[in-house]
């Protein structure tokens, strides 16, 4: 079964139909997705800014990371699960939306960035933990993370617009 066929099959399931036709399910999922975004990216931004040496310069980096990361992970989980439900609600529409494809391309990159930070930079943190401005590799991780999330948020918002049949019918491109 090809990917398109699979997506279309999901689109025609009763659950998918329920998600998009129910008055409550889709809006509620979107609201939860947005709140998850506020919690996760909202806290990730502060870790990034600390890595860039812009805020909390007198607080150890490990302190900021260890205290905020659980919230970021919690928020991300909310966002991830609700995001899957959003996709299940309108798979056909999202599959054919460019903004959505780009978003799905960038999300793993944000993950790799975090992985790189944990694998390669955190083990040496004792050497630069209390530095106001961390070494360039860490600043880079902060900058990459912030840029990726800004673009992902823009693409997320645009996905909602351009997956919408009304906007599509306007033939903007």
């Amino acid at each position, binding site marked *: 079964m090809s990917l398109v066929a699979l997506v279309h099959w999901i689109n025609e399931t009763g659950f998918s139909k329920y998600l998009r036709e129910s008055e409550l399910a889709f809006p*509620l999922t979107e*609201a939860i997705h947005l709140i998850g975004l506020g919690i996760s990216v909202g806290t990730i931004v502060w870790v990034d800014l600390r890595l860039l040496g812009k805020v909390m310069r007198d607080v150890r980096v490990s302190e900021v990371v260890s205290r905020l990361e659980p919230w970021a992970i919690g928020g991300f989980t909310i966002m991830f699960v609700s995001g899957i439900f959003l996709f299940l609600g309108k798979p056909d529409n999202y599959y054919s939306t460019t903004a959505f494809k780009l978003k799905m391309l960038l999300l793993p990159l944000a993950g790799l960035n975090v992985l790189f930070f944990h694998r390669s930079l955190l083990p040496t943190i004792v050497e630069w933990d209390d530095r106001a401005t961390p070494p360039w590799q860490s600043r880079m991780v902060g900058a990459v993370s912030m840029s990726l999330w800004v673009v992902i948020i823009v693409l997320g918002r645009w996905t909602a617009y351009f997956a919408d049949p009304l906007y599509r019918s306007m033939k903007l491109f």
Partner: protein
Amino acid sequence: MYRVLPQSFFEWCAATPLGKFIAASVWTMPILETFHIMGLVLLLGAAFTLNLTVLGVGVRIPTDRLARQLFPWAVGGLLIAIVTGIPMFMSAAPLYGHSGPFAIKMSLLLSAIVLQTVNHNVRGMYGSKVGRVIACLTLVCWFGIAYAGRAIAFSNLLGMQPY
């Protein structure tokens, strides 16, 4: 909102060149909304981190010091949200004026701003019991704002009727 402000105000908003321009434009609204969400993330993140710290579960450094650093970012995020929110409101003011979630959002916004400012500016609030209760309430307000904001765009969100 239509109960506290005259209908003519909402109609005037929508009739301004700005209001008419946005209502007629395809691209302006998505762009404004995109920035609105960015402002929201900045604001929610700062307010979340700050209030969690007041509650003793955030970053373990003196709250006053953290607050001094986070507060300007929260204000910045709020300003972005307000600057992008006003034109969005103007484009369909009479509609928003009659929207229940919009009225709830504005009430919560006012409460959140007042509560957060009181907590921030009254000496000794951070670290006190009252300060922690206020931090809790403020958090509920900020996330309620995000929820009600989303509800404005939909016909029915957990019993919230838009019009």
